[in-house]
């Protein structure tokens, strides 16, 4: 039986964590994910969960304690954002390198400097090569659902999972949401049965050795292969979840894409805005569509290009910039995927909404309008655009 509720994204995720009832949660508060830790502390204080909560002194220690708890044999979760995720950077690679199935909630927020607490994807994109499976969420419902599925995906893939949703836009906005019963979640995630763990009373093990060259190389290949193998795992777990909830998830979501002429690729909550715009454009006879990656890690590099190959023009939208003198990370990776699959579509990159700068329906309309021009332009177009902001050059503003 599903329960109808109205919850913020953070409360929805904290509720998922309560229903998962992990063995250990180690976390340090940071805006905009702080509420997750606060709600969860209340569950601990009131005995609603059996979890040991470790209120660590930094995010570095949060991830370290999670790694210690996970390697000891516990089911482990944490939550963070922005600078917190950046401080964890070193330990994220160790969590995946040790093949620990922990789950990290990331309410996406911009990175300093300048200091900014609002939403963009600089934080999770900055750690995109850390060996975490990354699931991106459009809504509170998706954040809740992905948090639950993440546990099972992590434990089957033997890789950590990061569940990303937009800070404030999703984390703090209240939406209607359907929750599962506690028992249904418990049954879905099942018991955590690690194969090798520190507290195994039948044998002693050593975790975290020094590898010399050949062993290091071999182990890194194994991690990369595990990430590749996570694709069917995500699909399978999502199918099981659909049976339970009726809510279907895949590696990505398509909206009006199959017959579209103009497409955009966009992550998280902006996909919601784009869907509204697509509805409007379709009424005007403009064949607009969208692809929203859910899994960015692993990257569906074979599947996504195939969905885009019929487009007349494509915009890949990045809510973070790579500062590489060229483009954003989603653009790099999707266009590389397209090239690898011999898909050649005129494609541009939009950097949008940095530091939480509003992205309105009109901005998305502008993207589709430009795509129509690009389709006619015979290759004469700018690759990189900044959306919705008039940047007047180096001396602009300040």
């Amino acid at each position, binding site marked *: 039986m599903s329960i109808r509720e109205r919850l913020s994204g953070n409360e929805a995720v904290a509720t998922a964590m309560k229903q998962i009832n992990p*063995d*250990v949660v*180690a976390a340090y508060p940071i805006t905009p994910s702080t509420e997750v830790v606060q709600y969860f502390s209340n569950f601990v204080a009131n005995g609603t969960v*059996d*979890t*040991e909560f*470790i*209120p*660590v*002194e*930094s995010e*570095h*220690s*949060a991830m*370290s*304690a*999670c*790694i*210690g*708890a*996970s*390697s*000891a*044999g*516990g089911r*482990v979760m944490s939550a963070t954002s922005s600078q917190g995720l950046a401080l964890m950077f*070193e*330990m994220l690679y*160790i969590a995946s390198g*040790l093949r620990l199935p922990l789950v990290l909630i990331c309410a996406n927020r911009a990175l300093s400097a300048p200091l900014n607490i609002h939403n963009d994807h600089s934080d999770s994109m900055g750690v995109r090569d850390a060996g975490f499976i990354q699931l991106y969420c459009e809504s509170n419902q998706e954040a809740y659902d992905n948090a639950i599925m993440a546990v099972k995906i992590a434990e089957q893939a033997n890789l950590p999972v990061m569940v990303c949703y937009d800070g404030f836009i999703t984390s703090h906005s209240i939406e209607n949401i359907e929750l599962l019963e506690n028992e249904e979640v418990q049954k879905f995630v099942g018991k955590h049965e690690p194969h090798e763990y*520190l*507290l*195994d*009373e039948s044998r*002693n*093990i*050593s*975790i*975290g*050795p*020094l*590898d*010399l060259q050949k*062993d290091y190389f071999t*182990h890194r290949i194994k991690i990369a292969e595990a990430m590749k193998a996570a694709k069917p795992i995500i699909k399978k777990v999502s199918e099981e979840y659909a049976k339970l909830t009726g809510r279907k998830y895949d590696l990505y979501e398509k909206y009006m894409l199959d017959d579209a002429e103009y497409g955009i690729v966009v992550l998280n909550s902006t996909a919601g805005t784009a869907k509204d715009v697509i509805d409007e454009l379709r009424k005007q006879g403009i064949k607009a569509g969208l692809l929203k990656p859910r899994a960015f890690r692993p990257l569906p590099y074979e599947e996504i290009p195939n969905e885009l190959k019929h487009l007349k023009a494509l915009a890949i939208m990045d809510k973070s910039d790579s500062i590489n003198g060229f483009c954003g990370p989603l653009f790099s990776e999707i266009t590389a995927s397209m090239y690898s699959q011999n898909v050649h579509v005129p494609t541009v990159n939009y950097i949008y909404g940095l530091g939480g700068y509003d992205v309105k329906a009109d901005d998305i309309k502008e993207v589709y309008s430009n795509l129509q021009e690009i389709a006619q332009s015979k290759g004469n177009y700018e690759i990189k655009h900044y959306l919705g902001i008039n940047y007047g050059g180096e001396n602009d503003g300040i």
Partner: protein
Amino acid sequence: MQVGHRMCAGCGAPPIVNQVLRALKDEDNAVVSCATGCLEVSTCIYPYTSWRNVSFVHTAFECTSATLSGAERAYIALKRQGKLNKDKTTKFIAFGGDGGTLDIGLQSLSGAMERGHDITYVCYDNGAYMNTGTQRSSSTPHFADTTTSPAGKVTNGKMQKRKDLTEIMVRHNLPYVAQTALYGNLKDLYEKAEKAIYTNGPTYVSVLSPCPRGWGYPSDDLAIVSKLAVDTCFWPLYEIENGVYKITVKPAKKLPVEEFLKTQHRFKHLFKPENKWMIDEIQKEVDEKWNYLLMMEEKTANS
């Protein structure tokens, strides 16, 4: 530790680890967490491990305390749920060098100690970053020559005094804090390790761990150098149990500190006639600390 580890001959760390783990009861399990450093890179090289009688985890340099605190909480959670044998006990022991403890690992250590995890932290203190080739740490003794505090024409080795982490740990209100060394028949080290491991709550043990390469002494002289550190009161052996100070070894004859200093190359420049003031300075610091401990022992005796 298993025979075959790759620590240098004459290093203090292996006998320290063996003696600490000897204090673990046969019937008990242990999870050992190790900071990145000499001990870690020499004892767990894939596919080998020297940690046969305990479970071992290494994550990174600065976070061995946080890592162990996570394992300790997982133990509590799993035990409460009946997932572990209720009659079996697992103890949690961290090993870190002075870099991983006093410097880069200080925040993680302080956090774990403040949170009150039931863990024992053992610092094997060799007074520099030996794993990377003897760079100064905050535990490097005053005037010691290291590769980043070289004795040169303008400066005379490390220009600052040691950070006294043992006292900092005392101020964390831990139930048990101790300082020890490889002294005599190692009874002092064994007893302190046993107390630390079997005291409920967070405990800290600082052990002087001579390093033949970084200090510059022949590897045969490990026991001699250790003993002189204690007999000169350069490295006092004491413990603080629930706030009560006790000096556990009081040398029958307190030797001048130069007896310790002269055994090591890192203090060689102190023995130039014009540098005698440095030895006097070190002697003064040693005396001050020793007198402080005598005072604290007396002051806290009846508390």
